């Protein structure tokens, strides 16, 4: 418990730094947000008035404190472009990004781990060489290229825009923005199938890099573990290959895998920016990129902040999971 509190405490300065950096970056973007709010044909007086209303004319430290004050109340301001509350927009869009990123991780794990294990069991076989070559290819493909290849290859059979067909969506009438989760919980087969079919291509495109990394790490950590004494002992004691792999080796190999998944969260969130653009996925990443184009300060601020915070929190969890998985890691003594 003390360790947990300590870790939680240690991320506070990081989060504070993140908020400051986001705030400064956003202020430094050239272009006049007041003018954007005012519209194309607005008068100079009107722009001035809007500037005052939104506090763009006040000194930076004051603006930062106001920003932090509002943030602590969960108030992210109002989007300049859509004139909606940013927290509302986040509530609708972030779940879309979370579903996409989680599906990509799931695909990466479900395919990557077995692939890595298979490769490690027969080192230097055709399977090993082939899967490792594929993994290398996987980390070398830009996610948007893969997206277009997928669209060209199977776009006629699988949807590649949006999260759900409008007709299904209206019938389904979701109460949250986690469509897949909600459809599963409500046992709505049609909605679930429809949501999953929309999810497949973008998740596949996004999963290529984590999949490749997971496969490679699984393979090398399995090789390492399989070579260790206790595994050899277990084998010598007559345990079947299968039992050894499942029981001993896999558990130990999980540690580096979990770590990698933590690191890949950053990639997934960044990759989501590009994937969502290719697949018209109504998530946060795409929204933020559009917001940058439109100089929509409140949205950029909130979006980038949200991504960074998510990254920090996920890594906190990874650290905790790591300690849980590996009893050798002593919780109290860090650094």
């Amino acid at each position: 418990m003390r360790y947990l509190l300590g870790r939680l405490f240690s991320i506070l300065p990081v989060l504070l730094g993140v908020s400051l950096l986001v705030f400064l970056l956003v202020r430094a973007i050239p272009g006049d947000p007041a003018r954007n709010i005012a519209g194309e044909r607005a008068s100079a007086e009107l722009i001035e008035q809007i500037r005052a209303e939104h506090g763009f004319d006040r000194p930076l430290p004051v603006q930062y404190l106001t920003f932090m004050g509002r943030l602590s109340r969960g108030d992210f301001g109002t989007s300049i472009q859509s004139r909606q509350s940013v927290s509302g927009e986040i509530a609708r869009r972030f779940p879309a990004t979370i579903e996409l990123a989680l599906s990509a991780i799931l695909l990466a794990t479900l395919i990557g781990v077995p692939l890595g294990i298979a490769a490690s069991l027969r080192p230097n076989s055709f399977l090993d060489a082939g899967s490792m070559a594929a993994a290398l290819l996987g980390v070398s493909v830009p996610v948007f290229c893969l997206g277009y290849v997928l669209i060209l290859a199977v776009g006629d059979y699988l949807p590649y825009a949006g999260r759900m067909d409008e007709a299904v969506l209206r019938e389904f009438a979701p109460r949250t923005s986690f469509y897949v989760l909600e459809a599963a919980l409500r046992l709505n087969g049609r909605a679930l199938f429809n949501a999953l079919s929309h999810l497949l291509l973008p998740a596949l495109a996004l999963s290529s890099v984590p999949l490749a990394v997971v496969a490679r790490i699984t393979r090398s950590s399995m090789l390492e573990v399989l070579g260790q004494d206790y595994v050899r002992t277990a084998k010598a004691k007559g345990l079947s290959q299968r039992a050894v792999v499942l029981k001993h080796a896999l558990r130990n190999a999980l540690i580096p895998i979990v770590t990698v998944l933590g690191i890949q969260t950053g990639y997934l969130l960044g990759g989501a920016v590009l994937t969502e653009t290719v697949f018209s996925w109504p998530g946060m990443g795409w929204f933020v990129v559009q917001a940058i184009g439109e100089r929509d300060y409140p949205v950029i601020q909130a979006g980038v902040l949200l991504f960074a915070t998510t990254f920090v929190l996920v890594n906190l969890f990874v650290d905790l999971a790591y300690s849980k998985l590996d009893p050798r890691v002593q919780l109290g003594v860090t650094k």
Partner: protein
Amino acid sequence: MSADDRHTLRRLVRHRGVQIGVAIVALWVLLAALATPLTGYDHSAFDPDTALDYQNVPPSWWDRANLPPDVEARTFLAGTDDLGHDMFGLVLYGTRYSLTIGFLAVAISLLVGIPLGLVSGYFGGWLDTLIMRSIDVVMAFPTILLAICIVTVLGQSLVNLMVAVGLVGVPGIARQLRAEVLRVKQLEFVQAAQALGFGNTRILFGHVFPNCLAPIIVLATLSTATAILETAGLGFVGLGPEPGTPEWGLIISENRNLLTQAPWAVLTPGVAIVILVLGFNLLGDGLRDVLDPRLKKR
């Protein structure tokens, strides 16, 4: 050259990944240098009006039915886009941009990251805490998003693109180097140098840094691959260099509306990215196998 170095070099030359990686990169550089004589496409003397007569022509190996005879008479290995650019020539020509941006961006990462990592690891204390906390902050941002923000702030240009991609790579280099310095610092010869009263600068650059080089070389090679990918990503979201510059990500983004009518205009630059990035990744992995003894366990 010591016997040890010769040994390492021999192992490098014999490493399959290194061989393939070097071959790919070298071949690609050669192709890029010979782009104009090879393809007949000259980017600097491009006549937009004649080119438009050859709009969206399929590659020579594609189904070329229904083409007007004068268009059919000309062959384009990778087809043309709707401005009439020969995609193969354009993409080869674009290699110059991708390689230059990649290398210079990594140079920026090294230039900023190495001092930070050295100082942080060697001196420790509050300076270390400050640098590492700042790096934690920066690393919390998805790289592509951070790069997008930096380009937006600095303004769109080729130089700023390199700066953004370079800056985003700094934390990785600094962290890795710091870890190395922490390890090397404990070694006997450094301790000895300190006991002898050598100056910090002399120890840092004379003893510590040379012994941290191997992982940095590996990381720099892999970073080049990442930098090329990130550059393409920025070009793709429209934050690359001036439109018309044959930067691969930019080409893909400008031709995305041709995906159904002229897919080759989107796929050719994509294939180029994959091949070059694959080359650097192979090379980096190979270097790691040979140079970085702790990661060699297999």
